[in-house]
């Protein structure tokens, strides 16, 4: 079976500094992978490069998504193909109403796939259903995108979009950062509800804590720009006990 996402020997620079030194990773449909690693190991860089953020130079390697060369696509093309990045720090966009943003984005993706646009009543119904399940009040949807949202609200807004856009690959970049335990549980429940045999997830986190709530099928350990160890979910617990130091030596 062809992997949904296949990263092969990826080397990436930011300005003159190489951050990823030949990273490889394969994620199959329906799987949840966790990527763990210390700060500066390149976890967020990987998520940004997959989503197409400008400012990163890929000097070698490739990323295949559903067998297609992802690096040749613009960020919006990637989104329309089914790649979704839940941001570690979702931006605030004053003056752009959340509802207008959601509709514009959803219809842009559908248009790019040659699908018909949602009618307003269908769209509103869908948003209301998803918002309710995530405990997002309607009042939040009338505000500017993420404007005045708490950390937890911002993360829930990311998950709302994930549910609405129905991507086939979700990358969750440090979803737990800045969340207290209650907010984390709500967010994780939202993510778990979206687990499906048609959808893969890559959960990037520094701490094992998140993986108590979103239980992965595969755990990768990243250090210094490479995947240095992969294993089952028990690998996360092992890391919790022994720390990252052992892997930093391996990578060095």
């Amino acid at each position, binding site marked *: 079976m062809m992997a949904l996402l296949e990263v092969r020997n990826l080397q990436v620079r930011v300005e003159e500094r190489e951050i990823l030194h030949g990273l490889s990773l394969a994620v199959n449909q329906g799987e949840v992978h966790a990527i763990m690693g210390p700060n500066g190991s390149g976890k967020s860089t990987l998520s940004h490069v997959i989503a197409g953020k400008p400012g990163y130079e890929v000097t070698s390697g490739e990323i295949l998504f559903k067998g297609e060369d992802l690096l040749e696509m613009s960020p919006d093309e990637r989104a329309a193909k089914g790649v979704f990045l839940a941001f570690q720090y*979702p931006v605030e966009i004053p003056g752009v109403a959340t509802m207008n943003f959601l509709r514009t984005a959803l219809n842009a993706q559908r248009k790019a796939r040659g699908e018909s646009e949602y009618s307003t009543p269908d769209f509103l119904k869908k948003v209301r259903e998803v918002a309710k399940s995530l405990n997002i009040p309607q009042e939040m949807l009338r505000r500017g995108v993420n404007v005045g949202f708490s950390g937890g609200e911002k993360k829930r807004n990311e998950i709302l979009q994930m549910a609405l856009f129905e991507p086939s690959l979700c990358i969750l970049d440090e979803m737990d950062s800045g969340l207290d335990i209650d907010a984390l549980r709500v967010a994780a429940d939202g993510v778990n509800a979206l687990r499906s045999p048609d959808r893969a997830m890559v959960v990037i986190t520094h701490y094992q804590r998140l993986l108590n709530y979103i239980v992965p099928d595969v755990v990768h350990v990243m250090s210094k720009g490479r995947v240095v160890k992969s294993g089952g979910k028990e690998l996360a617990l092992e890391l919790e006990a022994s720390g990252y130091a052992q892997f930093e030596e391996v990578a060095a």
Partner: protein
Amino acid sequence: MNVAVAKTDTGRVLSSAFAAARDQLPGGGKIAEFRRQAFEAYDRAGLPHRRIEDWKYTDLRALMRDILPLAPAPDADALNRAASALKLQAVQGARRLVLVDGVFAPDLSETQDLEQGLGVRTLREVLEAGDAALQAQLFAPGGADAMVALNSAMMTDGVVIDFADGVILKRPLHIVHIASGATPAAMFTRSMLRLGKQSGATLVESYVAAGGAGAYQVNDLLITAIGDRARLDHVRLTEDGREAFNISSAMVTLGAHAHFNTFGMTSGASVSRYQATIVFAGEGARVETNGVNLLNGRQHADTTLVMDHAVPNCGSREIFRAVVDDRAHSVFQGRIIVRPKAQKTDAKMMTRALLLSDEAEADNKPELEIFADDVTCGHGATSGALDESLLFYLRARGLPEKAAQALLIQAFVGEAIESIADDGLRDAAITAAQRWLEARA
């Protein structure tokens, strides 16, 4: 010296144009004398240039070079083309008053069934048969500004609108200036709006071209007197053809406790300038003036506002946004004058420019002239590019680059547009902004 020679040439061409046109211009006797004096004032100064401080950023001598011949009155073909252009300009429920090539077009206008207390006449009627006091009021702006002086000399038509005391009309008036663009020509219009005490009016002004119009020049002036406790909601949309020049002036006077909510947007014309002077003549009056420039290509648009606080206890707010792409050039000059008697004035001005290309230019000139000691006055200005992190967020959600930019541009100009108090006028402004964004995509 080159400049002097250029002035003489331009002056000579126009002198003959004025001589040729003067017999066709409405109003004899005293009016003709007003015109002659105004023309002399213009002729002495010539086209404004960069060494005149008020025109520093909009050098008409370089940009405009000369004044085109006076537009002939529109024929049937011109009126037909104007009628087609008019269809795009519908403002919900508005009463249209249409000027084609500087001449009032009764068949395109709605002057029947005027509401009680509303008077509408053409400028031509007033100049030919109006009372002397009204005629003098029409010439009151004088010749201090060369382009206003030229307007005084050459004005052919316009509308003179009166609201009686206490008359409040929800139905907007919509003055539409259409250039048929048959031949390169100049049009000179002047209108007047007088609001009686405690009256209320809504006015939209649009400047557009018929399809296929080439180069033309608009020179317009609106004189507005807002009576005590009266209110005017005003929107001005400059969507002239891309080879057009539009030099428009406004003189606004507010009575005691009057309220003026005004918004201007320029997305059309090659070179344009809107210069407005707002005078607080009665205590307790309020003005909100907001503007947006949406420019690309090599467009040049100048908004110059003078807020003249002559009496105590008045407030003014100015919000201005410029979106500048390609090699376009946006100018905002905002002068706030607080005269010695004008204590407790509360005047604020905020301008922001969004530069979408490396070659785009935005000039911002705030001038505060404060002669009273118990006032609150402030101004601020920023300029910058679209935020890359916001753009990436939107693109990562599936918006193509132009669509992501469009959403952020809408948000940027949103604050100025949201300040339009009247729902119908706000919709008209949003529609005009969308037309610009769609043309860009």
